[in-house]
């Protein structure tokens, strides 16, 4: 049976078409779905095994990147998303999608979204939006999509991509639970600093993390 993927979009989502194309090329059946539709019919999640939040500027990134979308996901689909992960669904947040995912609390566990979260994405150290190609290394993690050790080039384009943790314990917890899936490295796999590390993230952790709480 073909894997069913939902690419969730809303006002300001930009990368839904190339994301759907990539999923199709990888063999999935990708369906573009507007957030309002999913709110009205949350059962649509039942038939999918992959949920992707693509890149862009959801709601203009007004207030902060991904903030309003995160708030809407928590408010309208919080329980459904938890249930989706609980039953083994994959969630991928790319760029702005990851910024929203952080706000939902899916990374940190039930009740750890929004005001209760310990992870944040801050403005890049450079102080502005940047678009450039960088190299990522797959880290040993719970994420079954990524083969550990592999290096791959990827374009980043973001203004708020610096992962900041409330305290060291938060980072330790994420590491211990195998939730650090990707790391910025130099082209030959060495330790990255600006510009290979485009945003100044703590421990060079790429924000293009794969949420893999259930796996």
């Amino acid at each position, binding site marked *: 049976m073909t894997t069913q993927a939902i690419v969730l979009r809303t*006002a300001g989502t*930009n990368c839904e078409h190339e994301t759907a*194309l990539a999923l199709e090329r990888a063999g999935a059946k990708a369906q573009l779905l507007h957030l309002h539709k999913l709110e009205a019919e949350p059962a649509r999640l039942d038939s999918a095994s992959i949920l992707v939040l693509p890149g862009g500027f959801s709601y203009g990134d007004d207030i*902060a990147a991904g903030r309003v979308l995160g708030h809407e996901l928590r408010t*309208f689909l919080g329980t459904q998303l938890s249930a989706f992960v609980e039953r083994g669904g994959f969630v991928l947040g790319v760029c702005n999608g990851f910024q929203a995912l952080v706000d939902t609390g899916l990374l940190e566990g039930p009740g750890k979204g929004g005001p209760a979260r310990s992870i*944040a994405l801050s403005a890049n150290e450079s102080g*502005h*939006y940047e678009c450039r190609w960088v190299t990522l290394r797959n880290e040993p993690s719970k994420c079954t999509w990524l083969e550990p050790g592999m290096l791959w080039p990827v374009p980043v*384009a973001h203004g708020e991509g610096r992962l900041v943790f409330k305290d060291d314990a938060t980072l330790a917890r994420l590491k211990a639970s195998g939730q650090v899936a990707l790391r910025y490295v130099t082209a030959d796999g060495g330790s990255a600093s600006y510009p290979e590390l485009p945003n100044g993230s703590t421990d060079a952790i790429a924000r293009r993390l794969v949420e893999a709480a259930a796996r």
Partner: protein
Amino acid sequence: MGSNAARELASRHLPRAWRIEVFRRDGLDDPDGKRAHAAARELGLARLRSLRHGRGYLLSPELERAKVEEIARALLVDPVLETVRITAPATAPATSAGRARVLVARRPGVMDPVAQTIERAIERSKVAKLPDGSRVRVLTFSAWELEGELAQQDLVLVASKILANDVIDEVRIGDEAVHFVLPGSVSVRDAGAIPLCKASDAELERISKDGHLSLTLVEMRAIRDHYVTAGREPTVAELETLAQTWSEHCKHKTFAGIIDYDGERIDNLLKTTIKAATLELAKPWCVSVFHDNAGVIEFDEGWHVCFKVETHNHPSAIDPYGGSGTGVGGVIRDILGVGLGAKPIANTDAFFVGPLDLAEKDLPKGCMHPRRILRGVVAGVRDYGNRMGIPTVNGGVWVDPRYVGNPLVFCGTVGLMPANCAAKEVKPGDIIVVAGGRTGRDGIHGATFSSAELHEDSVVVSSSAVQIGNALTEKRVLAALLEARDRGLYRAVTDCGAGGLSSAVGEMGAECGASVELEKVPLKYPGLSPAEIWISEAQERMVFAVPPEKLAALLAVFEAEDCDATAIGTFTATGKLELAYAGQSIGSLDMHFLHEGTPKWLRKATRPVVRTDDPATPACADANAALLALLKSPNIASKEWIVRQYDHEVQAMGVTKPMCGERDDGPGDGAVLQPLPHSRKGIALGCGANPNYGLLDPWAMASAAIDEALRNAVAVGGDPDRTAILDNFSWGNCARPEQLGRLVEASRACYTTAKAFGTPFISGKDSLNNEFRVGDEVIAIPPTLFVSALALVPDVARAVTMDLKTAGNPVYFVGRTHAELGGSHYFAQRNVEGGRVPRPDLALAPRTLRALHQTIRSGCVRACHDLSEGGLAVAAAETAFAGERGLELDLAQVPAGTWAKHHDSDAVKLFSESCTRFLVEVDAAHAAEFERSFAGLDCARVGSVTAGKRLVIKSGAKTLVDQPLDALRAAHQGGFQG
């Protein structure tokens, strides 16, 4: 009034609203504060010790405190990064002692996109109930807190030069009375008759001037005569409609008028030059040229591409951020409104600004510093383009002191549309639907403002013409429009640009008629007069002609995207433009008079003096130093800090990137995109301009600009025989005969050059009043023609970049160098004035481009870089450091013309900016094939790619340049930082 009294008065004006201020936590960096602090240091304000930024929000006073706290926690504050201070309505916040505060809020009525998003988020999540939209509910502001021994004038300086723009912002220093109100006064009078029929010439001129109509006496007389015949006086709405539709911005009256060129009569310069070239070339792949919102050409099986470039000069001079942002938004709407609408797939941008290191004392009164202008326009393009999900892939920045008072901003968009969407028609009975942004008092008289000259008081009188856009609204329009198009839910569409609804509806209904009920237009806030609604240029609006049976389905599509769409009238068969407000007629205009009644302008032009002197090309005693200095000069130095702020990857179509090479630091010539994932056909975008040439020789300037745009597109793989070009003229005041004479010469060069290359113009735009007046002195911009090229790429897999690839490969020089250093960077460096300006050899150049294309297409070419500003030396340096490969060249091998002895040959070969020249790395195995392709043309092997990391340029036995790549790179990177 004493300061105590002032404070007391201010406290009575504390906003009746909940105030939420959000600051970064102690110990975390504050990027906004840091940026502003750095800018303050540039102003010499060493006393400022620290500066931090707080995001401020004002919320309806009716909300309970608990609700306000919940909104702040859930939505406005980051729990890891930020702290919050909540202040009750009409009370002053508990601020820390020792910190001065500057509050910056947008003036009432100026677009506040974040406030809109917050209102919507609150309403949708039902966290609290806000009052209805007739009252102000949410506003945002910035709270800046400054530390240091600062005097009041220091705060005023920082506020006016860095933190706020008086045109759109209201600043509070030393009090907390930030406003919480909707805009008030009416700027255009309500409906009523204007006594015109008996008006004298003097009165006609006064009516035009007082009403900011920008109509000439001849035009006012034509209007008066029309109403005398009609036997009544015009209404305000009618006169405003005529002023908008007849504006130079909309009608191009200079280009379309009659010109007396030293006795020679030119009837319609545009038609006889630029359009004539296209008509005579009669390319079968030109689908729709000059009559729609953009030019459309065939692309691939079942698909067309379209391209439009707009100028947005005057708004950007006054508010760089809003001006360039709405420039981007406007040209995107042109693409949404061409034919039945196209999907925007790429943006381009070009800025012409004053020197970034201009001393503050040399800044003319009423001007913003060029540094601030450039930062602002870059941020405007970045924030709007990135939010729209459209990659910004090509452009340029030019620096010249004559742009200080009147910078130029060009914004372009490329679109992709199914081949059956290129045409549209309006039928009587179709419903008029306006969709997207709501209408407010912003952007009144933009069309007439852009047609007038800037002066030191422009800031004061023109502020209503400036506005902030909301990309999110346009993104919603884009999504809904493309779906409605694909479902066939409308018959025609156009954008609301200059002139607002008056122009959009007037144009769409020109052949039939239209009837509009203005009270139906959705408003941002109450209180607009009908005439204001009609001419407002509020952003992000499109107008559709919808068959009645499809109206419900169309409205549903927009509703699903959370986007306003409203029926506001009907297209009719009356031949009239009928306006009503709440059942009352406020105007009825004859469509024929509106569109055809404009009296032709008659203007005088004199042949410009072209520099024919031939000053010596001085020898270059130290070519290393000369090259490094050129690499650092603002027009040549890297623009990477700008390029990196634009998303050039979104939509995943980019084949070559704006920055090329091993370290992504080489300036690419053109951009190659692959618009359809299933096809290897692509498009290449290039651009050209050279303001240094304009005054010396406008004909050569225009011809060279076309050559440069074509070079850029062909160098990356574009097919010169499938290339379309666009013209964007920005000129000084063409009421002056010598300025108009230059325009005639440049236009004629466009005709001759386009014909020679076989590249039709498909679209264009002109802005012909770019002067800045300070007192009695007028500073005109240099005549500036910005040319954009769109070429088809037969196979994107064969696209090439400008960085050298493999040591050992031969490097060829294509083209011929002449002693053409007039306007060159080398002459500027040596303070040589005048000289011969480069002109392409129109017999050879098209053949050279064709031959180069064939070799790229057949896979011979590994790298290709065009020679432009700074000539061969600069191009060689760029291609070498970008590739991280050494390069050795011998000038003795460079194909060269003949020149008089007073031109130093080595200097000419190193630094001349002659047209149609390239440096090409050829795969060693294909060298013979490459050479054969250029049989009968100028092409010679001049050197090789080397394993050493140095650029070495010799002239026979003599070594002129010998530099490590790192030194070249450092010079190129360090010369132009914003």
